[in-house]
Each structure stands twice: as C-alpha cells, then as structure tokens.
C-alpha cells in the first residue's frame, strides 16, 4: 500500500492562514506618535482661536445688507415691469372689449 503524504484539508489550510496572519510582527505607528497627536491638537486649538475673527466678516456683510434694505434705497432697484401695470385697473380685472 502506498504511503502518500496527506495534504492538509481546506479547513486546515484556512486555519493555518489565519494563524500565519496573527503570527506576523505587529504593525506600529511611527515613533513619537503622541507628540504628533499633541501637535495636531495644538494646531486645532490655534485655528479655533482664529475662527471668531473670520466669523466677524460675514456678520458685518449681513449687517450692511440689512441696513441697505431698511434704508429704502432698495426701491430704486425694483423693476417697473408688467406685473406692476396690472394694478392700475381699479376692479382688479380689465373690462371686456366691446363686440364689433
């Protein structure tokens, strides 16, 4: 009788592969990781301190827009289009044309 070497089953191969994965030297972040996290925190805090100054400019622009609207100068910009002309009929609807 032949004495053939037994080939590992699919299950064994799968388990071996997972074992091989776990047996690898563990990956690590580069040295001084904490220092980089801290630097990132500090730069984030510095950006947040600058943010209110940035936020002032849009608020000034909005305030200027409100002042211009309330001052009445905006009326000059309104178009005098057909929509306004229909308001000349006192009854709201134009009278029908006489039949020829």
């Amino acid at each position, binding site marked *: 009788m032949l004495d053939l070497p037994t080939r590992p089953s699919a299950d064994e191969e*799968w388990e071996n592969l997972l074992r091989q994965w*776990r047996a690898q*030297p563990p990956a690590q*972040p580069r040295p001084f990781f*904490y220092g*980089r996290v801290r630097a990132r*925190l500090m730069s*984030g805090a510095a950006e947040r301190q600058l943010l209110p100054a940035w936020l002032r400019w849009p608020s000034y622009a909005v305030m200027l827009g409100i002042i211009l609207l309330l001052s009445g100068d905006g009326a000059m910009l309104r178009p005098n289009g057909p929509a306004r002309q229909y308001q000349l009929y006192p009854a709201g609807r134009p009278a029908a044309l006489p039949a020829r």
Partner: protein
Amino acid sequence: MYSLPLSAAIAHGVLPVAPGPAAYADAELVAQLQGGSEAAFRTLVERYQNRIYRTILALLRNPEEAEDVAQEVFVEVYQTIGRFRGEAALSTWLYRLATSRALKHRQRARAQKRFAYFTSLLGFNNQVLHEPVDASHPQAQLEGQEQLALLLAHIARLPDQQQVAFTLRHEQELSYEEIAAVLNTTVSAVESLLFRARKTLRNHLAHSLRHA
C-alpha cells in the same frame, strides 16, 4: 456614530457585570481626562495607540493614511471625552471611533477617485490619472507571503460591516460580545457577519489559488 444605550447593552450581555481591573483602570483614566489631565491623555494614547493603529491599518491598508486617521481618533477622544458617560467600555468607544472614521475616510477617498475619473472623462483637466499606490500591508511585504497578501486583498473587498467584524475578530482577537458592542448589534448578527465573511473569503481564496 454608533450609540449603545446602557439598558440594551446589559440586555445583550455586552457590558461585564463585574468590571475587571482593566475596566477600573480605564474608568480612572477617563475621570482624570475629564478633569483635564494631560498626563492621563498621554497614558490613554500610549495604551491604545497600537491597537487603534492596527485596526485602522487593516481597514485602509496604507500606513500613512492609517496614522493620519489614528491621530484624528485621539484628537476626537480629547475633544469629546466630556460627553463620554461610560455606557460602553472605553476600548469599545475607541474601536467605534476608529472603525467609523476609517470607513468614512475610505468612502471619501473612493468618492474623490470617482470624481477625478469623471472629470478626466469630461476633459475638465488634463492630469494623468494615476492609480493610488496600493501600499500593501507591511505584514504582506515579506517574502513568501503571497497567500496572506491575497487574504488581505480579499478582506478589503468585503462589505464594510463584514470587514470590520472580521478584522476585529481575527486581527484584534475581540470576542463576539465585544464586536457586537462596537458595531452596536447583537451577537447573533456578528456570528452571521463572520459566517458570510469567511464563506466569501474562502471561496475567493480557493478560486485565486486555483488560477495562480
């Protein structure tokens, strides 16, 4: 962001009834951190940086991106520790932040790639599209690791939830209960995710090895 109500966590048996020494140590650390202790933050980073980095690396497969996302996780921890109420274990919270941030990062990168592809089709720019370098997982760069490289490549193609569950189980060796807590789901759902992930991976690996 995942959330785990305390009552649901207890019902699912996610939280330990009697916390071990590690849980007590973490609770003390969180209390100090909430009090503004920088030393406590340093301890937390040094205690968890390898686990968080490895988890993210397994999901992104790029050391630079993994480091960047790991930094983001710890910055978020520092900024939001005041809202941490201890409803889940500290490690569970960290794994949630890490996996959700890694998946978001990957979605963003894929969207940018698609956008760049379409703009190049429409001729909006004349830049040559380079495929991002598929920086292999450092573990797979070693010689004679073809099967492992193949396994990692197929893991990266799994659906998000399956990928996270499989990585936490086989990379981080978390228990089913811990994975359920991280994914905010039940243990049976985790079993199902892992079953489907293993089935898909084994089929793909068998197919790839037959054609190799």
